[in-house]
């Protein structure tokens, strides 16, 4: 018998900046732990939280969003040892941190690379700026456990979107740990929401939800065609994200482009 019995963590959902259990009262066992098994109602709560948080996040200056994401990198670095236990190890954690820092540096550069001033043939000033699409649903890949979910969530956040992510069904603990880093990182509550549970059960509700603007089905495996069909109901942007990649075009996938015309004259 050990001298002291450790206090074990309850693995919960991350919705609106809080850590509720599933309203369904269900859990499932993954990686040796009882993990919350989210329901359709939890999905809808998460989308509502994301929608409510979106204006504030999108309305922040790009510089401010960059600093908040950099703070997220600081928080992951501070918990690097714990994160290493939930993924392939220290190397994956470090790549994850560096990826978050890389995206933190993109927030205030996206408009300079993706936007344009357009020389229209007439007395008009015309420019195009990227804007976030809104609420983004993401299915996290199973591997790499930590880098994968970060690779899918952070580009959407970088562009100013709010995210509802379904953690890997097989390796959900990295996602839950990430939620704890997010909760202490100045990312406003509701901007990033992480659900655990059965992907096949949750993904269709997200794909069909009328208040979700984009869905990343890269990790949906065989279910992608059905999800894409459901996404058509409100013309969602469908993205097939990769588990380990970084590019400003990953951000662009979750952006709209707005063009403004203004006359020039005395």
């Amino acid at each position: 018998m050990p001298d002291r019995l450790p206090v074990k963590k309850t693995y919960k959902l991350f919705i609106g900046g809080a850590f509720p259990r599933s309203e369904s009262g269900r859990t499932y066992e993954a990686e040796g732990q009882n993990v919350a098994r989210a329901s359709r109602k939890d999905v809808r709560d998460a989308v509502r939280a994301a929608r409510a948080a979106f204006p504030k996040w999108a309305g922040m200056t790009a510089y401010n969003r960059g600093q908040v994401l950099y703070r997220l990198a600081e928080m992951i670095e501070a918990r690097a040892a714990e994160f290493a236990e939930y993924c392939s190890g220290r190397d994956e954690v470090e790549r994850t941190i560096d990826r978050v820092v890389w995206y933190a540096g993109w927030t205030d550069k996206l408009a300079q690379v993706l936007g344009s001033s357009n020389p229209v043939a007439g007395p008009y000033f015309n420019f195009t700026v990227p804007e976030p699409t809104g609420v983004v649903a993401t299915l996290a890949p199973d591997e790499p456990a930590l880098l994968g979910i970060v690779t899918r969530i952070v580009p959407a956040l970088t562009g100013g979107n709010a995210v509802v992510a379904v953690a890997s069904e097989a390796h959900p603990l990295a996602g839950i740990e990430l939620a704890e880093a997010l909760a202490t990182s100045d990312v406003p509550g509701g901007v990033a929401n992480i659900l655990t549970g059965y992907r096949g059960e949750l993904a269709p509700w997200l794909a069909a939800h009328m208040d979700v603007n984009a869905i990343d089905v890269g990790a949906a495996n065989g279910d992608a065609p059905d999800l894409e069909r459901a996404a058509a109901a409100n013309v969602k942007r469908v993205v097939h994200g990769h588990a380990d990649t970084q590019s400003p075009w990953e951000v662009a996938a979750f952006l709209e482009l707005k063009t403004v015309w203004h006359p020039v004259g005395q």
Partner: protein
Amino acid sequence: MTELEHRQDRAPVPKDWTYAPAPEARDIVRLEERYGHFVGGEWLEPTETYTTISPASEEPLAQVGQATEAEVARAVQAAREAFGNGWSDVSPAERAKYLFRIARILQERSREFAVLESLNGGKPIKESRDVDLPLAAAHFFYYAGWADKLEYAFPNRRPRPIGVAGQIIPWNFPLLMLAWKIAPALAAGNTVVLKPAETTPLSALLFCDVLRQAELPAGVVNIVTGDGRTGAAIVKAEGIDKVAFTGSTEVGKAIQREVAGTGKKLTLELGGKAANIIFDDAALDQAVEGIVNGIYFNQGHVCCAGSRLLVQESIYEPVVEKLKRRLGTLRVGDPLDKNSDVGAINSKQQLEKIQELVAAGEEEGAEIYQPPCRLPEKGYWFVPTVFTNVAQSYRIAQEEIFGPVLSILTFRTPEEAVEKANNTPYGLSAGVWTEKGSRILWMAERLRAGVIWANTYNRFDPTSPFGGYKESGFGREGGRHGLAAYLQFEDGVHA
């Protein structure tokens, strides 16, 4: 007695409504008695020194080095070695992380730097605290992000660093100008030798402690202090690949001549004589605030200051009247007082230059207005000044005064405003005040200046390129474009 009267009776009633002193604490800054040059990560004992003072009190603050040619050569050598032995091999993502660290440390130590900046430079604490420091940190943060994204800024051009940059900065925004120079240079992978201005070396010397905390490799940033002789030695030094200068047009021209034929790359951010143009449909109170901010911000020690006010004739009287009334509310005094709007003139030499030009304005026939104002007895001060009845040919309408002195001219049509605004050898900035959007853009198309502010003035942001047309210099600082000054490209096309 009603409850209200009872309360008023007990409340302490101020006898007069003037501001009580609100000095920012000075003890956050710990000054050394003597500073050397920061070379190769170590302090090099200087062979010659001079005293740096507080322009608000003439109080000596510290002894700093006057770098000789030999000392500059050592700094350049340290930068060369750092470039060759490691820094250029540091991965761009790691380079970014050093810059992020510097940004964070500047944020953490911002009050200390703000106090030092006001102490050594004379600018009001509310400006150093709310403008210089946040912008300096933001500049490092912004360029940190570029360090590992250069191929997105210059697609198909294979950007690479130039080598060693020699950077010479002015005294009006000492730490901010340091940030404008060092952040893009390091993001692009160069090493630097930087010289702060003769009168404001202390924030750059304290910045060396930030570099220590950030664990930046030795020799990547070297700082030498001194006057124009030190600057000249940097420009001439063999191991310098690129010169970046911010300062007067006169010195800029001398530097351009000096580097001619050497193959050194050059960017210049020089003087200005910006027009701030007010149309009759402008929101006048807002415009008056903009005029005041445009010329009295930082005592007018701003290269892009709105030093020529062009007022549409029909609103001349109300604008001048509102402006004079507003001038009377400006508080001139102790830079460390949180209520001061206008601080001390940076140096005796600069004060004399302002006095000389103001005297010339009066002699040439302009009408001077200065609000009643009690100035401190010690230190260098100048009352915020407005000139009316100014002809375009007057020296105060042509030469950069670099002080709190505004010259007012009038115009009738937009065409005339453009012509008068462009009628100077400078072309750094301009301001346009009108509620008509199309007119803002029409004016912006025709003004020969690198930055146009519309219904605002003196806005700065790391993402926004800054720099001049004509004799205000060439090259841009800030934004994606600011990187180009510190890169060379393997596509065979010059930057």
